[in-house]
């Protein structure tokens, strides 16, 4: 169906269902319960899940399929954000204009940067992309202030900006043909409250479309070419195929996805800042990709969700919460543990936990969450039949 085989179609249906039901699935604990801080069904957080899922799906087409590790992907998110913001400032707040324009402009930059960076491979490619991202970050932070807003973020100014398509009483928040993206419907069911937001569903729709496209890319002859580049670049050349155009296409596609993510970020929250382009942000994208499982279909979405969820939960845990959980322990031990956890692992120090988890994943399960899932599954299956192991699908190498 839809040009997919049965398994892929099942996967697509799963992702569609998860995306559609996320406001319910991610809010499993009642508002009043002590576990409610584990809920993730807030529109702002779910938007981030979806948007970074999209960016990661694109990054996966580059890194997962071809093995080229780009350390400058955040620059494309930044370029997308700035473009979308300028569409608001110049034309109007309709995201149907801003998002395609964000992709278009990002695509132009991706062609230019890709054309230069792809002349080198391996670590040199990583460092070239890193250099471009650093330049983008530094310029937009300092001398490009008229365009990027510099240290004060760029945000729309309904009084002074031209906004030529806005009309007399046009909306001054991001909207889709006049439909406000912040429109919410809150359903109260018993102790639970589920928030359905238009903005999230826009992101979710784009996520499902992106996912569908990425399945098609994975299964297409083009996807095979990209895998061939990862497997053996030289041999591909010997067979008479020039890998360059394929590489550039993959780079531009992943750049487009990142620009799309940037445009969506601005559609959800109308401001754009240079911090989005800092190289540790690019590093976070790489971390998400590895954590989920590079080269797998579902990995990018899992990785993006896992990191954003960790960030939200870990940074929200407070010292008093720790005290209440550990209150069964003897007093001295409790204070000591709370001190260690509060200062090193949760709250503002959550990056340390992220780094540790990331290191453990790289060391022990280089295939990420998807490989972990497969290992667990095969452990169970082994009891049934041995040949289930043989047919195990390996991630694209």
């Amino acid at each position: 169906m839809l040009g997919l085989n049965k398994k892929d179609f099942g996967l697509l249906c799963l992702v569609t269902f998860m995306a559609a039901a996320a406001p319910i699935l991610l809010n499993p604990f009642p508002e009043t319960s002590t576990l409610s801080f584990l809920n993730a069904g807030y529109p702002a957080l779910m938007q981030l899940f979806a948007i970074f899922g999209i960016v990661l799906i694109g990054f996966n087409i580059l890194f997962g399929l071809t093995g080229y590790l780009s350390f400058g992907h955040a620059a494309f998110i930044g370029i997308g954000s700035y473009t979308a913001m300028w569409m608001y400032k110049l034309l109007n707040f309709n995201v149907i204009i801003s998002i395609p324009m964000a992709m278009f402009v990002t695509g132009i930059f991706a062609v230019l940067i890709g054309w230069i960076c792809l002349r080198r491979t391996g670590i040199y490619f990583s460092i070239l992309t890193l250099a471009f991202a650093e330049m983008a970050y530094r310029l937009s932070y300092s001398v490009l202030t008229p365009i990027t807003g510099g240290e004060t973020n760029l945000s729309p100014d309904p009084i002074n900006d031209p906004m030529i398509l806005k009309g007399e009483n046009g909306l001054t928040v991001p909207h889709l043909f006049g439909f406000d993206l912040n429109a919410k419907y809150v359903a109260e069911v018993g102790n639970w409250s589920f928030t359905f937001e238009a903005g999230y569903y826009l992101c979710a729709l784009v996520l499902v479309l992106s996912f569908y496209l990425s399945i098609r890319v994975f299964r297409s002859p083009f996807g095979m070419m990209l895998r061939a580049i990862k497997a053996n670049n030289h041999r591909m050349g010997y067979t008479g195929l020039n890998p360059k155009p394929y590489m550039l296409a993959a780079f531009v596609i992943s750049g487009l996805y990142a620009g799309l993510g940037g445009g969506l970020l601005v559609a959800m929250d109308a401001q754009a800042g240079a911090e989005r382009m800092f190289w540790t942000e690019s590093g976070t994208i790489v971390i998400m990709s590895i954590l989920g499982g590079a080269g797998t279909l579902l990995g990018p979405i899992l990785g993006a969700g896992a990191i954003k969820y960790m960030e939200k939960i870990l940074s929200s845990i407070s010292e008093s919460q720790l005290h209440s959980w550990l209150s069964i322990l003897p007093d001295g031990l409790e204070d000591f543990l709370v001190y260690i956890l509060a200062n090193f692992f949760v709250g503002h120090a959550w990056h340390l936990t992220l780094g540790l988890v990331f290191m453990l994943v790289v060391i022990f399960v280089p295939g990420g969450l998807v490989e972990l899932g497969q290992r667990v599954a095969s452990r169970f299956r082994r009891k049934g039949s041995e040949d289930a192991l043989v047919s195990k699908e390996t991630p694209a190498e």
Partner: protein
Amino acid sequence: MEEIIQQVVNGLDRGSAYALIALGLTLIFGTLGVVNFAHGALFMIGAFVAVLMSDVLGDIREIGSADDFFKLVQVVEDPTQTDFLGRPLAVETSYWVIWFGESFGNWLSDWAVPIAVLVSIPIMIFIGWAMERGLIRHFYHRPHADQILVTFGLAIVLGDLIRAMYGANPIQTPMPDALNGPVDLGVYLGYEASTITYSAWRIVYFFFSMFIIAGVFAFLQFTTFGMVVRAGMADRETVGLLGIDINRYFTMMFGLAAAVAGVAGVMFAPIQAPSYNLGMEYLVPCFVVVVVGGMGSLGGAVLAGFLLGIVQSFASLPTWKNNLVEWLGLDDSNLIANLIIGVDQIAIYLIAIIILLTRPRGLMGRKGVMED
């Protein structure tokens, strides 16, 4: 002419730091074949050894340290004096002054940073050794991407450990009083007085880094140990066939590289107040330095380090940029004019891109290193 010399010397301290970090990176890459993203973190840890030593030696001039645990300073409220809010003045006295008398105690606190260099060497060698044994060793046979990723994760972990201990703000770690203040270099070079001035500590930093670089090169060139290491860098397998346990040597080299980055960080602490992201800040330029110098070439790393430091200092010189903007007939609000003014932000990256595209192996790179 004076202006040009001034910019060259201005670039030297940053160039020295680049050269020292890049030297360590190249040592690790050349011997173990590992791209170490955690090397900036080692530089940062070195700088925090300086902070630790100024705490321990009771340096009361230090500002911004959140951690009073190691600070050997006695705080007594003196009711006879008041501060600007009218409260009794808290007088800080180093315990070293109390224990060993005024002159020796003050001397110790004053020279905390140079003393930290000596302390940092064993600490850094141990950290490097532990890193290689505990982590990097298991990654020799994994792809380069995995090595980059695991060391990147380690860099995050080390940075945030330091932040958890010392807080997020930069900590002012002063240099010895005797080396504080400017030196009039113009007089020594035969120009008029106060045309070329330079901070004394930065001159010390430059000569210190030259000394370390010369030491590392002499060690590799003139000792048996260094000979084995160089042989191993050239052909690891053959050295192994000669019955030499080359891994043991390489572990030592990792420790040495960590120590080089560490002492570079210690001495840099008075120049730039260390904070937890100092490592990340210097890592990216240093990778650029290594790539420009040529992967695996020690001389190239040092040369490119100084070169890029000086280029950066020239790029931040306003005179020629203003002249260029005027010559092109642009006004200040023009985008291109803005880009020219801001070129110091991106100079080294531009150079890296140009070098990588025209001389793929870098300035002094060898054939067959990191080429697939």
